[in-house]
């Protein structure tokens, strides 16, 4: 099955060996990238094959060496920016489909979990095992919050409610970045909790 992406279409395959993935990747004549090669424990391998243009014969391949730990990589399509956002191991990488280059790369403090796109404010939330960070469209880190293993989260109106394994749940207002903790309330902008570069 294919995933339509503007004038391109995408195919995702997984492999148990790096050699197998590399063999297929080597046939992608439209460009090749390998991500996650610095991972200590490369367990599973994924290949994103982008069939370029209406013709679809020219392939741009992105290989991912995944550490897994029970977690699979995520792919967020950003067709308006001709970009793919990939979350795996402890990093997030944005890859341009037109220029076939890495646009930005962000290292996380723990294992990547999921993406969540917001319309208002227009942010991309990146959830990792022990926290989350907000990115703008260009990959600029806007704020981050880390506490403990995130068990669950939900958005109700403007608030992101997060339940942690060994810490009080919080409700983070995404408009003004105030945080309500269980049994206490404070109005501290998240930037003051953890400054970002």
């Amino acid at each position: 099955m294919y995933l339509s992406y503007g004038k391109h279409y995408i195919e995702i395959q997984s492999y148990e060996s790096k050699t197998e993935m590399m063999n297929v990747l080597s046939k992608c004549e439209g460009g090749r990238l390998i991500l996650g090669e610095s991972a200590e424990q490369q367990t599973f391998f994924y290949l994103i094959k982008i069939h370029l243009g209406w013709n679809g014969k020219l392939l741009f391949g992105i290989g991912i060496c995944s550490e897994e730990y029970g977690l699979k990589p995520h792919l967020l399509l950003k067709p308006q920016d001709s970009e793919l956002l990939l979350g795996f191991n402890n990093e997030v990488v944005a890859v341009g489909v037109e220029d076939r280059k890495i646009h930005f790369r962000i290292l996380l403090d723990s294992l990547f979990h999921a993406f969540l796109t917001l319309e208002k404010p227009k942010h991309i939330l990146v959830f990792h095992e022990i926290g989350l960070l907000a990115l703008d469209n260009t990959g600029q880190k806007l704020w981050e919050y880390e506490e403990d293993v995130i068990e669950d989260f939900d958005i109700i109106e403007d608030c992101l409610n997060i339940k942690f394994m060994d810490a009080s749940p919080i409700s983070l207002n995404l408009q003004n970045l105030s945080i309500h903790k269980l049994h206490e309330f404070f109005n501290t902008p998240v930037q003051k909790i953890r400054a970002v570069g």
Partner: protein
Amino acid sequence: MNHLKPDIGRKLDYLFGKATGRQHNLDRSLSMLKALERIGLYETPTSRSYIAEHLEQVFYNQENISSQNGNWVKRDSLLAGPRGFLKVESTWKGNKLITIVLKGGKGG
């Protein structure tokens, strides 16, 4: 010498596949259970206290710090089981254990 007592919270449950909440958490927790079982550490009171003791020793050892950011500290250790070893990467905030990554073997 660290005079605080380590607080491992519910992280032993997390290690032994008993996480709750999102599917990501359950999958991650089950993968740690499988890793422990591969080295012969099954969920028994003995294994639980053995790992709790290991984590306590890790916390008190000042020589195993692999990286530090403020009071967030990452520590590396080696966990021995009846059938092998696992590398344990633990993250601490002060005396509180935040998370653990078990490394070694496929699916670890």
